C-alpha cells in the first residue's frame, strides 16, 4: 500500500474522490478511470512528499490538483454514455404517431408498472485493522479478529433488465433478453433499442434508470416522453407509464436527475435531435453532498412544490470537439415555489432562449427549464423566466 494511504481517513478520502469521479459510468469504464486517477493522485502525492509535505497534506493537495471529481465524472459520462445513443440500432425510418400505436392494437390501454430499483452498485469490501472512517458512504460489512471490512457506496438509480422487460411487455412492446443479458425492445414502427447490463446482482443485469429516457428521446418512438416527480419519478411513454422505484426499493431524485443532465442539455441545445448532439456539457456546478459550500442561487419559480427545475449556463470556453459547452444543475422546487441551484457566475440574467446564453457583454446569462410535465423531446417548451 502507498505510504500516503496508511490511515483509513486517507483511504476514505481517496476512495470518496474516486467514487465521485466515476459516478454514472459502467463498472468496466469506472474501474479503468479509477485506476488512472488513483495512479495520478499517488504521483502527485509523491511529488508533494518530495517537497516536504506530510502524507495527509500531500494527499489533500493532490486531490485539489485533480480538481472537482464531479466535473471529471460529468465529462467522463459525456464521453462514455452520450455516444451510446448513436450506437442504438435502427430497423425502420417511419415516423411514429399515436394513430399508429392504435393500429398496433391494445397498446393504448393505460398501464402503470412499478420498477424496483437499486440505489448503489455492488462494491468489493475493503478490509483494515485500523478504525473505519465515519462517513455516510461507508458501510461496515463484517468485523472479525480485529479486522473490519467495509464498502464504499457507489450511488445511483439502477433498474433490473428483466423488470424493464416486464414493463415494456405490459405496454405491448416486443422484447427479447439475449444470452449476453442485453435487452432488446422493438417499438411499433420497427425500430429497436438495446439496453446492456452495467452490472449484475444474483444473475440479474441492471442498467441506470436514465437509460430508459436516453434510448427514446431522439426519435419519437413512443407517443409521449414525460416525467413527473422528483423521488420515485413517473416516466410516461404515453399509455405506458413506469414508476421508477418502489416504496421498499426507491429511486432518489438526486441520483436519477443528475445522471440525466447530459441528455437534457443535449435535447435542449440541439436543433435536430436525429442528427445528433450539437453540444457537450461540463456537468453540475456543485461539488456534492457534504462538500464545501459552492455559490448558489435561490429562485422563486412560481411553480408548485415538487416540480423539477434545471439551471443551464454556457461555459465560456469552447471544448476541443468544437461543440458548445454548458454547465447545469437540477433540483426540485420547495413548498414555497423556490428552488436552490448551484452556479458559478453571479448575478445571473435569465433569458428565454438557449441561443442567447452566449454573452459578449460580461453578463452571466442563464436559462431555467421546467423538466417535469413537459415533453422531454422538446425541452425548450419548459423554459421560463422566474418571478424573482
Amino acid at each position, binding site marked *: 500500500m502507498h505510504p500516503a494511504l496508511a490511515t483509513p481517513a486517507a483511504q476514505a478520502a481517496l476512495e470518496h474522490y474516486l467514487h465521485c469521479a466515476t459516478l454514472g459510468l459502467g463498472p468496466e469504464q469506472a474501474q479503468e*478511470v479509477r*485506476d488512472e486517477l488513483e495512479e495520478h493522485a*499517488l*504521483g502527485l502525492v509523491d511529488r508533494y512528499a518530495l517537497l516536504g509535505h506530510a502524507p495527509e497534506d500531500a494527499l489533500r493537495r493532490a486531490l485539489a490538483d485533480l480538481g*472537482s471529481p464531479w466535473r471529471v465524472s460529468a*465529462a467522463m459520462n459525456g464521453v462514455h454514455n452520450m455516444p451510446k445513443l448513436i450506437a442504438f440500432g435502427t430497423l425502420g425510418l417511419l415516423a411514429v404517431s399515436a394513430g399508429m400505436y392504435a393500429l398496433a392494437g391494445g397498446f393504448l390501454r393505460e398501464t402503470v408498472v412499478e420498477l424496483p430499483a437499486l440505489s448503489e452498485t455492488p462494491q468489493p469490501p475493503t478490509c483494515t485493522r485500523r478504525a473505519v472512517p465515519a462517513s455516510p458512504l461507508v458501510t461496515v460489512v463484517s468485523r472479525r479478529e480485529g479486522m473490519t471490512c467495509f464498502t464504499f457506496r457507489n450511488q445511483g438509480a439502477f433498474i433490473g433488465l428483466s423488470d424493464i422487460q416486464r414493463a415494456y411487455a405490459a405496454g405491448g412492446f416486443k422484447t427479447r433478453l439475449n444470452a449476453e443479458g442485453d435487452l432488446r425492445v422493438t417499438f411499433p414502427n420497427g425500430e429497436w433499442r438495446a439496453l446492456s447490463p452495467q452490472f449484475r446482482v444474483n444473475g440479474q443485469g441492471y442498467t441506470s434508470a436514465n437509460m430508459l429516457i436516453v434510448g427514446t428521446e431522439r426519435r419519437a418512438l413512443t407517443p409521449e416522453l414525460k416525467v413527473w416527480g422528483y423521488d420515485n419519478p413517473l416516466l410516461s411513454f404515453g399509455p405506458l407509464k413506469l414508476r421508477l422505484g418502489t416504496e421498499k426499493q426507491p429511486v432518489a431524485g438526486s441520483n436519477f436527475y443528475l445522471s440525466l443532465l447530459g441528455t437534457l442539455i443535449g435535447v435542449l441545445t440541439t436543433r435536430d435531435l436525429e442528427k445528433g448532439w450539437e453540444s457537450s456539457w461540463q456537468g453540475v456546478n456543485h461539488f456534492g453532498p457534504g462538500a464545501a459550500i459552492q455559490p448558489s442561487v435561490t429562485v422563486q419559480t412560481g411553480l408548485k412544490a415538487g416540480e423539477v427545475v434545471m439551471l443551464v449556463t454556457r461555459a465560456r470556453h469552447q471544448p476541443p470537439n468544437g461543440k458548445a459547452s454548458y454547465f447545469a444543475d437540477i433540483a426540485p422546487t420547495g413548498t414555497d415555489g423556490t428552488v436552490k441551484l448551484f452556479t458559478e457566475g453571479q448575478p445571473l440574467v435569465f433569458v428565454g432562449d438557449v441561443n442567447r446564453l452566449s454573452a459578449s457583454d460580461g453578463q452571466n446569462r442563464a436559462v431555467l427549464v421546467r423538466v417535469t410535465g413537459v415533453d422531454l423531446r422538446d425541452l425548450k417548451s419548459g423554459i421560463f423566466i422566474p418571478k424573482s
Partner: protein
Amino acid sequence: MNPDLLRGNLELIVLTILERQPLYGFAIIQEAKDRTDGYFDFKEGSLYPALHRMEQDGLLTAQYGEAGRNGKPRKYYAITDKGRVTLGEKRREFSTFSGAVLRLSGA
C-alpha cells in the same frame, strides 16, 4: 494562463506531447509542465475525459504498460495516424488564428 484558452486547445497540446512518444496521464501532465516551464497549469483530472474522448475519436490508441504506484498497469496513450493528421490541421488552424490576432494588433 487563461484556463479557457488552455481547455480550448487541450487536444492540440496532448497530440503535440504524444507526437514524440506514448505516455500515461500523469506523465503527459509532467511533460506539458516541463516543456513549458509550468505555463500549462490546470485541474489535472480534466485531462482524462479528454484522453478518453480522443481515444474514442480514433486520435489516440491505448495500451497497458508497467505497474504504476497503485499496482495497476499504467495506461499509455499513443497518437494514431488519424491523430497525426488532426494534429497537422490543428497546428495550421492555430497558426492562422494567432497570425490573424498578431496582425490585428499590428505586430
